[in-house]
């Protein structure tokens, strides 16, 4: 436990001292959300709120161009986080992905209300919150090598995973990735090189 804590601490200070990256502490977010789900923990919700609310507000303001509406998006999104925390399944994805989906859906319905004057709340039909894992699993069924690669991929740092996934799975060019991730091309190239080095070693190990 102690070892775990000190590892987390050292990871955090490493992140702080680096001006290039600003990685999200996913396990912390996950702990908070689980505390809400299991104990209706208000302190955990407050912490989660303080992490997400300013960012949701900024993103919603960018789309709706209104402080009042952006504030409503924050309220609606975070209410859903509070009421749906027990539906979150950390084996299916990160907290950030889950909250993003809720926020994107709430914002979409708001935009439709503004533009088409429709209150039909279509977003949850278009982007269902509980994504079935079955389709993902099916697509990997015949690709044992692919599945193996996914496992090894998961051991890489987030920042390198992003680049590898973008480059190989989404077939984006390094230039597209640089634009998409808002990073210098050099950073993309070096991350990709680092990641591939590690992948080669690890896949080699697994094939022994």
């Amino acid at each position, binding site marked *: 436990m102690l070892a775990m804590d000190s590892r987390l601490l050292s990871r955090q200070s490493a992140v702080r001292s680096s001006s290039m990256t*600003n*990685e*999200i502490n996913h396990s912390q977010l996950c702990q908070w959300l689980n505390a809400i789900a299991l104990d*209706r923990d*208000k302190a955990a*919700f*407050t912490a989660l*709120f*303080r*992490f997400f*609310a*300013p*960012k949701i*507000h*900024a*993103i919603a*303001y*960018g*789309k709706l161009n209104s*402080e009042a509406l952006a504030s409503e998006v*924050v*309220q609606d999104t*975070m209410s*859903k986080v*509070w*009421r749906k925390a*027990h*539906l979150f399944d950390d084996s299916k994805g*990160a907290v*950030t*992905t889950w*909250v*993003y*989906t809720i926020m*994107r*859906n709430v914002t*979409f319905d708001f935009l*439709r209300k503004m*533009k*088409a*004057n*429709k209150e*039909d709340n*279509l977003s*949850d*039909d*278009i982007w*269902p919150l*509980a*994504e079935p894992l079955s389709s*993902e699993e*099916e*697509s990997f069924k015949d690709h044992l090598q692919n599945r193996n690669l996914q496992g090894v991929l998961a051991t890489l740092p987030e920042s390198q995973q*992003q680049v590898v*996934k*973008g480059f190989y*799975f*989404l077939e*984006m060019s390094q230039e597209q990735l640089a634009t998409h*991730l808002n990073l210098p091309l050099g950073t993309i190239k070096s991350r990709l090189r680092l990641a591939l080095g590690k992948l080669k070693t690890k896949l080699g190990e697994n094939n022994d």
Partner: protein
Amino acid sequence: MIKHHPKFELLKSFVEGDLPASLAAGVAIHADFCSICQQHIDLLTEQVAEMSFEQQATDKLFIDDQRQSYPPASAHLDDMIAQITASDALASTQRTAAPVTMSFKGTQYQLPNALRNMSLGKIAQIGKLSRARVQLDEGKIHTSLLHIAAGGSIPEHTHKGFELTLLLAGSFADAAGEYVPGDFIMLDQRHQHQPATEAGCLCYTVVNDALHFTQGINKMLNPIGSFIY
């Protein structure tokens, strides 16, 4: 096998919630048929989420905008937290709505989940063609369910703007070949086609009959460039 997929830029706009409901539903329906695109969507969502919630990204937004940082007053924030957590009601696990079905020329079709809460107009018929409008009220963008009875075809036509044809059931063919359910066919005014079906088919179509796009959509289409071809 599905051969026609949405372009990457369309998937990205889909994930970011920037498509009109008509096209967003089209991408969602395709992804139900196509595990490859579903996988791309899942990865993109993960990435976009990660980037959206990186501190740096939003800090920059605030600086660029020269706006007052959020929240205006921390009392407001505490109020919001108190208000939200005051309720102990839990959201129910899943929507359990029965699938929506619609019958064309005596054949019953189950409609995609993405259309579950969209209001559908009455079926209009001309010969072997039956059409029900999906009433999304998106201005120049018209969305329909189009049924072509066995042996029917659509007279040769060109498009102003774009035309999305998403095959839901059955099959049809044009000069470019044969299509199967899930095929996502995006055409523009440079294309002429005359789809014909031997056994009958049901399609989801989105047509922009205007000569110019609305501002919002244009923004979405511009970076795509070769999106319509």
